[in-house]
């Protein structure tokens, strides 16, 4: 291993900003993208549940005898 201390590791030979800027952005985006994809999946499930509930409510309303005079 070529690093003698943590600060030397972070400094990356004076190019730390470039190296960590690249790795940090990559890590951030690769954490955010799966979260967005999972949120889309969850939203799709919820949409189906809501549609089923709406349809059930519509069916129930259609079957109920009308009480209006």
């Amino acid at each position, binding site marked *: *291993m*070529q*690093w003698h201390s943590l600060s030397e*590791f972070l400094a*990356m*030979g*004076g*190019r730390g900003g*470039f*190296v960590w*800027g*690249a*790795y940090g*952005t*990559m890590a951030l*985006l*690769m954490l955010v*993208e*799966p979260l967005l*994809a*999972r949120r*889309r*999946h969850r*939203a*799709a*499930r919820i*949409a*189906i*549940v809501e*549609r*089923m509930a709406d349809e059930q409510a519509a069916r129930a309303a259609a079957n109920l005898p009308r009480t209006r005079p």
Partner: protein
Amino acid sequence: MHAVNSPAVTAAARPRLTWFTFASPANFYRLAGVLGPVCGLVAAAFAVAGLWMGFFVAPTDAVQGEVYRIIFIHVPAAWLSMVLYVAMAFWAAMGWFLNARMAFIFARAIAPTGALFTVLALWTGSLWGRPTWGTWWVWDARLTSELILLFLYLGYMALVAAIDDTRRADKAGALLAIVGVVNVPVIYFSVVWWNTLHQGSSLTMGKEQHMASTMLVAMLLLTLACWAYAFAVVFVRARAIVLEREGDTAWARALVAQSNQG
């Protein structure tokens, strides 16, 4: 079905595994639900191994010092940006010619991940170019063709999002994706065909490598991590699109109802 009168009715009732089994959205949905997390774990394992090799085993570069370590993510991101484009165009073409529902879903599911890797290839390249070339950006053939790749991804996503009719959107997007595939070899061979500021290929098949083997291993490990990551996230997105499109089918409703009770 011939199995109706046979004694093995229960076995025959179970769907047989064929090449087309996972062309069914319901089957794909279940399979991807298992494979997605597995790919995610594989990606994490390869990422840890690759980062360890890249930062603690690979030596300092004799010419570029430490900043060269960006290569371990820059090259995988650039490769994935091209590979995913070809994969997207392939599924778009399959959807077009076979009229297969899942193929169009794959094409749509791949696009955002491909765009992400293209952005990362450009961004990491820029952060590498500044200290080594003295500039964030040049309009050389490699960089320009990669930027065009990003526009192709964004154009595809904007096009399919802009057309309300799903089938027409799929077909219009497929046409754009297929035409745009000519850009991929242009990117790949740009450093050969033109005199670019960008360096030549880091890896050339059949040639002796000029990279230290530990550097090469780090780069390949992180490439595998990116591949596995791409599979994992594309599976999640493809499942979401399946539910978006199959919300009126009995299987999707049964599945959602079941998981809501549990």
